[in-house]
């Protein structure tokens, strides 16, 4: 046999977390795509605003404001179990994953229930005017994000409760957390623009 230089990689680990993992880049790509969508929807919102003398042309009303505020609060708080389930995944702590993903799924479900109420009591429809269209556009896109996030978390929870848990599932939990962070971080600025900014600027806008 001839002696030959080789690069032996058999000692390398089988999983890695964060940006070392290809799946993380897949999720980052997905987040970039959806963020671009939301930024363009925000651009649409402000572009259409130039066509109105009063903005918003129809107020959403106090009840919707209250529900939307509760939604945003639940969503913001859900970052905590996300963080804790990520840490549990890094430790390989299956009980911790069950506990925190469980809480995260419940909080996501509460968010969706509140969203259901908001959709039911908004005082205008998407076909009333362009403001209605873009407002419902935001709600549609975000509800889709949140719904897929909750379904994903529920699926991970089911797996964590039933097993068998493969090593790479720990990475999946971590990456799922990354996606839920996106749901949280992408909705809060939209909520601010849709519900808070009009109140702040009402007096200055002609």
């Amino acid at each position, binding site marked *: *046999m*001839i*002696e*030959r*230089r*080789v*690069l*032996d*990689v*058999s*000692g*390398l*680990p*089988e*999983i*890695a977390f964060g940006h*070392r993992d*290809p799946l993380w*880049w*897949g999720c980052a*790509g*997905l987040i*970039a*795509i*959806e963020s671009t*969508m939301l930024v*363009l929807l925000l651009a*649409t919102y402000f*572009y*259409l605003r130039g*066509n*109105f003398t009063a903005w918003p*042309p129809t107020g959403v009303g106090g009840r919707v404001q209250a529900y939307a505020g509760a939604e945003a609060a639940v969503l913001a708080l859900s970052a905590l179990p996300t963080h804790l389930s990520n840490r549990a995944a890094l430790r*390989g*702590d*299956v009980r911790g994953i*069950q506990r925190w993903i469980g809480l995260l799924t419940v909080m996501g479900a509460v968010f969706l229930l509140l969203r259901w109420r908001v959709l039911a009591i908004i005082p205008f429809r*998407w*076909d*009333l*005017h*362009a*403001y*209605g*269209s*873009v407002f*419902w*556009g935001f709600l549609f896109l975000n509800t889709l994000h949140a719904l897929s996030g909750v*379904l994903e978390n529920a*699926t991970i929870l089911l*797996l*964590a*409760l039933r*097993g*068998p*848990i*493969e*090593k*790479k*599932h720990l990475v999946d939990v971590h990456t799922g957390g990354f996606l839920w962070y996106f749901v949280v971080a992408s909705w809060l600025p939209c909520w601010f623009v849709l519900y808070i900014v009009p109140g702040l600027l009402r007096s200055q806008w002609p």
Partner: protein
Amino acid sequence: VTARLAPTPSVELEDLDQLRRTWSGHRGLWGTLTSVDHKVIGRRFVVTALVFFVAGGVLALLMRLQLARPEGTVLGPDLYDEVFTVHGSTMMFLFGVPVMEGLGLYLVPLMIGTRNMAFPRLSAFAYWTYLIGGLLLWIGLLLDVGPDRGWFAYVPLSGPQFSPGKRVDIWAQVVTFTELAALAGAVNQIATIFKHRAPGMSLDRMPLFVWSTLVTSFMVVFAMPAVMLASSQLAADRLVGTHFFNPAEGGDALLYQHLFWFFGHPEVYIMFLPGMGIVSSVVAPFARRQVFGYLALVLSLVATGFIGFGLWVHHMFATGLPQIGHSFFTAASIMIAVPSGTQLFCWIATLASGRPRLTVPLLYVLGFVAIFVVGGVTGVMLAAVPIDLQVHDTFFVVAHFHYVLIGSVVFPLLAGVHFWFPKATGRMLSERLGRWEVALAFVGFNVAFFPQHALGLRGMPRRVYTYLPETGWGPLNLVSTIGAFVLGVAVLLLVVNVVRALRRGPLSGPDPWSADGLEWSTGSPPPPHGFDELPTVRGRHALWTRAPDQPVVVGLQVQHPEVLVTHLLDAEPDHRTHLPGPSLSPFALALATGVTFVGVIFTPWAIVGGGVLTFAALVAWFWPRPPHKTLHWEQP
């Protein structure tokens, strides 16, 4: 890990058999539906896109026949509208983007020295989605519900008021399908290029085609959402009565143009940059020297990627925008000539200082250079607002973008087809037929499109199904039609060349061109596992710079499809990972999304029904199946 001396001359023979078994797909129809091999899917993408290219070309010839003389009677006005819309949509959405996506899928893993894409099932999903979208467009045309509002479907013409029926809805869904496929492909490429390069292939040693694919993928990620949003809003306006583009209720027709061109202009570069990558790949081996100005070429690709997002308003100069916008977008449009020119000079320098072999791929590249310069010059002309306003919506614009797109997409692509055909099939194309192809394509193209500049300057508008004899446009139109048919003959010759070569072309061996990329170090066609021995790299032009005792990667499992993951910047080995094997899930998911998107043409409730199907398909996709990969030490 570091390289170490070990008494293993090469992968043992029984291991090679095992490797082949591990990475092979199933046979027969089941194998077709479940394959996740990047080579199989890349090949499918390219072949399907070329079929759409020929089909779109037939529509072009029909239009040229209709316009060959005044008051032609080949196509009526309604059919003509469908034909030019489907021609444009096919060439942009079903040919230009997917063919480059397919080429990237086939080549990138081979060029960076890995065995498959980072997300093999996502590649398969992208293909099925693209195929369903393409079939939707063409079945629509055959059933006389082909879209007929131009490939950009401007509102208000395409809105509910002026376009009743389902033609525009079909267009909107075709866009959604093909953009979804492109996005899936782009994310897959980014992860693959960042994380699966062979040890030693740091970013500054990456082949230029891989660089072009990377930049293109980033452009796709940030450009395609705009058109998905625009087409979804258009569909919503038509289906559920939203008012995004309805001025009567505060909507805005120009908003549609902004969103569309925020995608539409980068789209040009999304098709063009892979072409530049092909040119760089072809120039070096045929000039027999390393490419001149590697850094300048990479920076030009990246610069084009950024500047490409700042030009979209030059498509809208005629819409009455503020003066300051005109100035900015004129400047930006002229600026894009800088990176394009830089690349051109680098290739000229490479050829001038090398010892060029004038084979067919290089001849296509030379044709590209000539045509692209003309297209670039008319581009700079059109960037000037006064000229743009004069020739807006005339045949001058048609001539310009065909020079740019055929010049920088089709010619480089054909160069690439001739260059990599031996790699993909193991056989050589005929050099003699190839030279006829290049000659006919070059002459035919110029005869077809150069006169259209003059027609545009003489006032002939785009998208008219006929014209009167008194306009005097007849003779030049006839010349243009003759040229189009000559170009058609060139494409026919290519088909003949390919069929002949597949049957009895001479065998090529692994590296018929003495080229530089890693793809030439494996068999032609490559085995299912890509490489018998996974390579390492110590310089640009991997094969030309490798050491006599260049180490190979060992220690990956051969019983499972396992690959190496490396660090993003310097490609140092990081960890090992399993890739999924053959699976029906991508096909099932594509069908589920297909049902959703096609259903939405008729009822908004399809989102609910299709959503349930899609979720079910996704769970089936992700749910772990035995045999299980390495289990975690703690179980519930």
